[in-house]
């Protein structure tokens, strides 16, 4: 049996725009990954707990409300606190270009803005999955 890559697709924040997150979840399933989808309005604490219980390799965050500079780093910090900093974080949504360097510095390794082909997300996972193999 081969090792399966597990990815949590989570939506922090208060917006209810989940089409993007659902699209990504579905596309990653079709790419052969095991995707856990938890729905909208998840707190950073719930996302981190879920990531740990599900023992995921990646967490993909989707947020369209503008609170990314607040919530994404908070999730990275909580993961570190729980000793789960081997989980790779990426994000997407309506995120201004100017915010991306800040988010990367905070440990969100890739940001996929609207219009990104799904192939780029898959390439990102493929390029990094060796790092999270256990």
């Amino acid at each position: 049996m081969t090792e399966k890559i597990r990815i949590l697709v989570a939506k922090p924040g208060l917006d209810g725009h989940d089409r993007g997150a659902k699209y990504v979840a579905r596309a990653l399933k079709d790419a052969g990954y095991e995707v856990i989808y938890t729905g909208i309005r998840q707190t950073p604490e719930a996302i981190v707990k879920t990531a740990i219980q599900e023992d995921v390799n990646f967490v993909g965050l989707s947020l369209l409300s503008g609170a990314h500079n607040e919530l994404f780093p908070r999730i990275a910090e909580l993961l570190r606190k729980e000793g789960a900093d081997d989980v790779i974080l990426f994000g997407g949504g309506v995120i201004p270009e100017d915010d991306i360097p800040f988010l990367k510095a905070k440990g969100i390794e890739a940001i996929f803005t609207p219009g990104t082909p799904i192939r780029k997300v898959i390439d990102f996972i493929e390029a990094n999955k060796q790092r999270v193999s256990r």
Partner: protein
Amino acid sequence: MTELAQKILAGNTRSIARAISHVENDREGREALIDELYPHCGKAIVWGITGPPGAGKSSLVDRLIERLRTRGKSVAVIAVDPSSPFTGGALLGDRLRMQKHAVDDGVFIRSMASRGHLGGLAGATADALRIFDAAGFDYILVETIGVGQTEIEIMGLSDIVLLVLVPGAGDEIQALKAGVMEIGDIFIINKRDLDGADKLRVQVEYVLGIKFAEQSDQMNPILMTSAINDEGVDDLMDSIGEYVERMKASGKLANRREQRLQDEIKTILSAKIFAAFHDFMQMNGEIDTLVQEIVHDKQKPYALINAKIDGFIKEMHTK
């Protein structure tokens, strides 16, 4: 004892989660780990929750977690969803209905993909169950994939099976058929606010009435719930409690657990024998040769296959 096993026994979340990945991926040390944990198993009560897709299994599990938490019990949930037969990928969405328990330290929810395993569960579900059991959870709730008629493996894994049905899935002939309809301990008609719920109740009563014509006191309870509206759940909890007490008193629970162990030993044995035979055939490229011999050389298939198996048994002897 290994450090991992120690941490599991201490209830460490990270270690439990990691250990389940170990058994799911069949990593080295899987069998030794389970053997280490095994003496600490047997304390948890296991509820199986099964039924067709969209019946409301996850929403009901959400309510059951709520009730068990109010009683101060710790709860582990294993929620199985299907893997794609084409890509091997899976969308695990059961825990979406249970996320309000995500930050509760007394609740551990783990999604599992079936990974090609038939029967309504994942191949590693039994081992995951043991990990939770050893970790000291009071209750383990196992939710199957949405089942059709033959995915009855949950019966061999749980102390009690809750069969969740919904109105609108066919007439009483469907309910008379063999398979899933036979494995329920407690029958739950969820979405009781929908049209046809009462009719379904009558149909289920009819079917069970035939089965228990001679001993109507033994008939399985039928409960009507609406998980979303939180209706009928307390009655369901009472009914489960009474049923389990009855099973304990009659010795049925102990029997069932023994039967479970028997089934499991058989499953593991056949899996191991199959794997050994598979290796044996692979090694010699035998399947291709067999096909050649049957198609081109017009050999008799059963005679050939029996000869192969004899060869395999002889080789096992000499090992």
